[in-house]
């Protein structure tokens, strides 16, 4: 197991290099970083532009340029943002922390309720409860996050204020303007609506995964063997049913980080929540290459990381998978 993980980690380095090269290419072609720099800084001198091209590895030769960028990135010589010459790492670090908080809150809430709903639905397929949960899940996945976000804002902030004089939840940011220091209650209040938006998607998706996975398991022969032993129904369900049903769900969960981050990007933007999503949309809109590349590296690395987690947990849960 340990050697397998080591080998996978070793393999992920070339993958990371290839994917970041592709991202570098795509951003060079898609956003034209030099033109964006000139647009944002119209009065920049020739020397400034040359320096910008040099530190960012924006040489006309893509391969050479990529390796120059890579060298600067690895040695920590990160260029500053094109707008306002901000340092990239502090901004990226804050964005990561905020997104991690929002993302994990939504994921925990979402997966917890999603799994429970899925189990409840699968226990009596075709029953009233199943139809209700299944239909709700369909409604959930059919509402794009930006729509539910708008609807919540409309309801809990705009109209709540109109009806009760005060909005129930704030609709933007992490803290009110001018607030300093740490305040858990205030933070949770600001996180409530964005968490809800992302969690709804997760609940809807996972209740369906769990339902179909558990249904497959419930129809399998070994469940009948377990019942024929005369053990309690609860034990049959938990020890034989859930253990098997969770295998595909856990694997999907770890591979699904991409779609969760996708939902976060949209949600953060609407709630002006200063996380990775807002960071990306802002810097992408401005073609801010120095801000975008490190962001991409973080995303690619986390996708690879969760891919690894998926494989390892799969092997750990399912003895049929041999790693060596």
């Amino acid at each position: 197991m340990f050697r397998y993980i080591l080998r996978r980690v070793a393999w992920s380095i070339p993958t990371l290099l290839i994917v970041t090269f592709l991202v570098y290419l795509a951003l060079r072609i898609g956003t034209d970083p030099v033109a964006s720099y000139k647009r944002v800084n119209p009065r920049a001198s020739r020397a400034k532009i040359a320096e910008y091209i040099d530190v960012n590895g924006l040489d006309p030769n893509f391969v050479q340029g990529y390796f120059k960028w890579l060298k600067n990135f690895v040695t920590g010589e990160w260029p500053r943002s094109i707008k306002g010459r901000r340092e990239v790492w502090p901004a990226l670090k804050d964005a990561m922390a905020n997104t991690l908080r929002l993302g994990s809150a939504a994921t925990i809430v979402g997966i917890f309720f999603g799994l429970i709903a899925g189990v409840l639905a699968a226990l009596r397929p075709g029953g009233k409860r199943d139809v209700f949960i299944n239909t709700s899940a369909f409604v959930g996945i059919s509402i794009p996050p930006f729509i539910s976000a708008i609807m919540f804002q409309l309801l809990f902030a705009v109209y709540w204020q109109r009806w009760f004089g005060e909005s129930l939840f704030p609709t933007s940011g992490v803290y009110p303007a001018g607030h300093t220091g740490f305040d858990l209650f205030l933070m949770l209040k600001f996180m409530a609506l964005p968490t809800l938006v992302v969690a709804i998607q997760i609940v809807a998706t996972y209740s369906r995964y769990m339902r179909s996975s558990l249904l497959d398991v419930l129809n399998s022969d070994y469940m009948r063997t377990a019942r024929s032993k005369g053990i309690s129904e609860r034990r049959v369900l938990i020890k034989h049913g859930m253990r098997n049903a969770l295998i595909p769900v856990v694997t999907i969960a770890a591979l699904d980080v991409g779609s969760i981050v996708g939902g976060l990007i949209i949600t953060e933007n609407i709630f002006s929540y200063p996380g990775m999503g807002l960071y990306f949309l802002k810097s992408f809109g401005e073609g801010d290459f120095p801000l975008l590349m490190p962001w991409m590296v973080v995303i690619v690395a986390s996708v690879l990381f969760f891919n690894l987690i998926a494989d390892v947990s799969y092997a750990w849960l399912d003895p049929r998978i041999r790693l060596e």
Partner: protein
Amino acid sequence: MSEKVLEIRDLHVTFDTPSGPLEAVRGVDLDVSAGELLGVVGESGSGKSVSFLAAMGLLPARARVTGSVSLAGEQLIGASAKQMRSIRGRLLSMIFQDPLSALNPVHRIGDQISEMLRSHQDLSGREAEKRAIELLDIVGIPQPGDRARQYPHEFSGGMRQRVVIAIAIANNPKVLIADEPTTALDVTVQAQILEVIERVQERFGTAVVLITHDLGVIARVADRVNVMYAGRNVEQGTIESLFDHPSHPYTRGLLASLPRPGKQRLKPITGFPPNMLNPPSGCAFHTRCEFAADICKGEMPALVGFGDLQTACVRARDLPKNEIFL
């Protein structure tokens, strides 16, 4: 005759399907005596497996079961879920057709046997483990100590079926139901599994019900045979009498379609098994029976003593004797 451990009387099982109610078992009477090996034969869909799944209480909720099944004096039809749990695996246990899917892939073999032991006996984990290894040895698995720590996927099909048998006999049940235990296996392995079942039966005095569509298997191991067709038993008797002078045309047909040394041609039964959503009236076999007369379409025939056999055929006495061997 020795005491009866399992008595099935007038058993009916009906499934609600999208196309209407389907009566898979239509009044089955059947006895199993202590220590005997009873063969139950029939085509697929004849209701042979469903009857015993009903006795185990393992049918899905949409199945309606009526009639009586008593095991050592205890009534199983209509028993509470709790009662059934205490009986399943202790007095009555079952071996399933497909050994590849009957074992839970994520638990160790030893644990799956221990679970059976500990659900009915007050054993510590270590005692159960030790007993599990003994059981693996009894069913003929080499190096049982090492094998107990392995997972099902590390076993071949035949080995897995031995494990399933070990689980089924763990609590020394009165009746062991083996539902097509050899169908999914290679011919060479089939013989070994049958041997294991016979050995268990002799060693522990367990009554065994062997459900199969293969008369060859029955001929090899059974003491008595029960032939089922379209949810009814059509003939029963000792293995010798049934093979020597079968009375029911269906049994005759089955035997005629069996390959034998020296026989030039096999004679298959014509036609198809009946559609159980809408079974033929009277004797369900009349649509395929070469001796059928108008009387066969009337009432469902009951089992009647006919020599040393019991036969459900109104024309049994009129039929020519044993022409199948001519």
